[in-house]
């Protein structure tokens, strides 16, 4: 198979891929000879008396926390900012790239709730055509009314909620066909 025949990567490489497909090749994470994207780095991980985990890098301290982890998908909070990664081995990384190339562009866009709240009003109906940036729903959260807008133009294929429904964060509100 062509995919597996290509040259084998270093087995101590762990490739952290960001949602925008930037990659960090971390080699020898436990050893003194730590390299990231080929550059030798000195990074220490330690825990303080209060139970916080810190990274020490170039004499600076960074507060770190793994906030979510499902198999090889990670969300790391560093100094209060979230970063998402998928960790790949050199082989799985090549497979990922290969698959991506052949994957069809997704035509279905889902609109999710940006925050938990209550659906106050639906501003569109199923099968309606919407423009990019158009308000489609009003979501009440923490006593504020928020207009939820669509990021894409298209046809409303499915509405999963009704006025008065309570929704959780990331719940799918509508599906829009581009």
């Amino acid at each position, binding site marked *: 198979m062509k995919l597996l025949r290509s040259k084998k990567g270093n087995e101590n490489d762990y490739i952290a891929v960001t949602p925008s497909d930037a990659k960090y090749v971390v080699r020898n994470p436990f050893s003194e000879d730590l390299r990231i994207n080929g550059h030798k780095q000195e990074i220490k991980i330690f825990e303080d008396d209060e139970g916080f985990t810190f990274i020490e*890098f170039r004499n600076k301290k960074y507060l770190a926390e793994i906030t979510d982890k499902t198999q090889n998908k990670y969300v790391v909070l560093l*100094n209060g900012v979230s970063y998402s990664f998928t960790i790949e081995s050199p082989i799985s990384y090549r497979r990922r790239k290969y698959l991506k190339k052949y994957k069809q562009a997704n035509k279905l866009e889902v609109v999710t709730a940006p925050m938990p709240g209550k659906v106050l009003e639906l501003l569109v109906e199923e099968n309606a055509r919407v423009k990019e940036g158009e308000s489609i729903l009003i979501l009440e959260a923490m006593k504020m009314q928020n207009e939820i807008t669509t990021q894409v133009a298209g046809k409303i294929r499915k509405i999963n909620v009704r006025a008065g429904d309570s929704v959780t964060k990331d719940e799918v509100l509508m599906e829009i066909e581009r």
Partner: protein
Amino acid sequence: MKIKSLLIANRGEIAVRIIETAKKLGIKTYGIKSIKEPNALYLRLVNDVIDFSVSLDEIPEFLDVEKIIDAARTLKIDAIHPGYGFLAENPYFARRCEEENIIFIGPSASAIYKMGNKTIAKQIASKYKVPLLQGSQGNVKSVQEAADIASKIGYPVILKAAAGGGGRGMRIVEKASHLEKMFKMATNEAEKAFGDPSVFIEKYVRNPRHIEFQILGDRQGNYIHLGERECSIQRKHQKLIEESPSIALDENLRKEMGLSAIRIASAVNYYSAGTVEFLLDADKNFFFMEMNTRIQVEHPVTEMVAGIDLIEWQIRIAEGQKLAVVQEDVKLTGWAIECRINAEDVQAGFSPNLGIIEKISYPKGKNIRIDSGVTDYSVITPYFDSMVAKLIVHAETRDKAIAASTAALKKFWIRGIKTTIPFCLAVMDNKKFRKGDFNTSFIEKDMDKLFYNDVEDEMLAAYVAAFDFAAELETNRTTKPDFERGKNISPWVLNKRLKSL
């Protein structure tokens, strides 16, 4: 009359703040325990807890006028401090306290009513020659009426809830075609938030600064102002960072605005602490917006520069004491900045980030003040607002206050929830903010990125993820099954485990 006992009809950081002053004055404190937050920090600090968590009433506990009055009466409590929000600006509650001979820590019911009703407040301001924005004479009853007024004064206009405050029930209308939708939203929101759908309309000033004056008045009719607070760093009318003084004011303007604020307060025989809010346009014209008849979230910046305890003065004035200082004695020194630390995910449009604070650690320093309502293992619930703490820093100059705030924010550590700390850091780092060149549209217009991070941060985060993944892989390879499934194990622990194999 000396107040010996105090019921705090509030929660969170302001309850903690009031307890602190009450303790200092030797006043016994009572707190209200709600079922939504039975382990809250303030309940550990009060002398006595009144348990409202046993019954499940329709009315939320901090809004239940009769139940609170009843508790105060039964326990023979001298006074009630409403804090901010909830019943703080409810004239009916203040009147019920008056009727039951319970001291309400705040102004009279009549002053709350007059200032709470935006229409009356505006009539008073106009009578006392305080500049006002053009708009409706009173509430607008229909979309048509709103449209008529809007076309007369010109777009953009703003619709505001007559009973409003805190940014709720407010909608900006850019053009006539948006009016109907916005009118509906504003009235809906007003009804929801305040139980009163009335709205009024006024000319919308683009990109104004939000400047407010802290005043204190006693029952003898003496008034002072304690300078201004600049609260222009707002998102959807919610203040996020406040400072005192404001870089936009000079001595003359400060004096003029301060006197206007006092004129409005004295017009309603105001006593206690109060705040008069103004809009300041780019040409330094100011317009009266509203008066908040309560202690405000951002009161600490004034306390830092004025060197006084506003809650203490609220209590003293409620006891009938006279103000101890006259205007000439008010000395404002240095610069204070307050950063609100909210449990919000800045990267997800400031959405509430609910959860448990696993660990919290505050920056320490001589000029650092923390007003916090939480501690380790506090739960952030969806029932209350998202503010968990405030960081207030005082320094000689604005530049130094910004530098000190930055340093303090970097040592403000929380595990378990996301907060607005990276946002506050981004503001402190912003060139325009540093120069003092900003207004209420700062967040939308002048911030490229809503959170602060350094170039190497993503790489370091990638390292943490890779390290953890590799460590877990190694553990699986060499040991028995991991019964915790690697959940919530810090990389450090995994690392140590590996070494001890």
